[in-house]
């Protein structure tokens, strides 16, 4: 494998030494491009009581293309599908090499606080969300209790 670019090393060091509140990202021992990530559900959201596990992978051409990020914890959210794939512009067309792992993870945390059923990835969830938001938020809370790790 090619040597790890200096930028990835610097980003990793900073993620460990100066972590974003409510977010952890730990590189895997055998592949420094693979990170185990946790994101705390934002306060005042249906996910507030849970900690969610994700995986993040930096492709070979990072930072010229976006990191690949996926939820491992099951979550009820209109922009996250059954496989944990995330519909977020900065992970796709709006990626910019000036963005970093930490900014991307912050965007994902913000997405939990502001679901966008008009740009859905999980169509059934988005439909529920638009038809009966109160009920959808209830389900999101139930799933958080059931599948996510409890906050300390």
């Amino acid at each position: 494998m090619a040597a790890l670019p200096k930028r990835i090393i610097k980003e990793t060091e900073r993620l460990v030494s100066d972590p974003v509140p409510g977010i952890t990202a730990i590189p895997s021992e055998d592949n420094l491009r693979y990170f185990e990530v946790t994101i705390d559900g934002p306060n005042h959201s249906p996910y507030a009581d849970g900690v969610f596990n994700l995986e993040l992978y930096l492709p070979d051409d990072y930072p010229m293309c976006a990191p690949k990020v996926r939820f491992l914890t099951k979550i009820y959210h209109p922009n996250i599908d059954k496989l944990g794939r995330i519909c977020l512009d900065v992970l796709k067309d709006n990626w910019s090499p000036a963005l970093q792992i930490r900014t991307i993870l912050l965007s994902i945390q913000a997405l939990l606080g502001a679901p966008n059923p008009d740009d859905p990835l999980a169509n059934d969830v988005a439909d529920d969300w638009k038809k009966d938001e109160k009920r959808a938020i209830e389900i999101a809370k139930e799933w958080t209790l059931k599948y996510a790790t409890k906050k300390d």
Partner: protein
Amino acid sequence: MSTYEEEHNIQDRANPRADDTTARGRQHATLSNIIDTFLTTSGSDTPSNAYAMEALTSALHHLSDADGSRLAQTLMESLQDSGDIDGKRSKGVSQEYLDTLERVKVSSISEDDAFCPICTNKFKDDKYPLVVRLPCGHGVNHIYDLECVGPWLQMNSTCPLCRTNVLEAEQNRRKKIEEEIRRAKEEDSEEEEEDWDVYG
């Protein structure tokens, strides 16, 4: 006795030579020579590639219209798919554009710890820095290592910091300059009309 045509080294219109048909045929685009043009130019980012692409698409379009063949249809669809990829590639800037980007002297950068937003290394730590400023607009100072922003701009012509389309920004900048030159010239010619007559 030799004929008029022989004496003047021209062909009898009534008896065109055998190779005349091929000569005439060559002037018409046939599917096979369109494909040839496409194959020889594809892979290069030149405008002629785009032209060849267009010619091939329209040729296939005619073909599928003419006999409703599914093959032509399939070819066309796959061509359009690859066209999307090409389209994405052509979203970027050319090498010439990169060469003309404004260079920034590192000694002129006021902040001591200014760094390239892409590699996050300080400009001043670089032994052989090659720093460029993107034409995002007035008052912004979006500077990068050319080595870092070059590959990005070749894929995507937007500033990584503000998403300004640098191609459009550059075009607008040029338009403005041309406009200014034109206006200056008009004013000049009003003032010094006689001089122009002399030197013009």
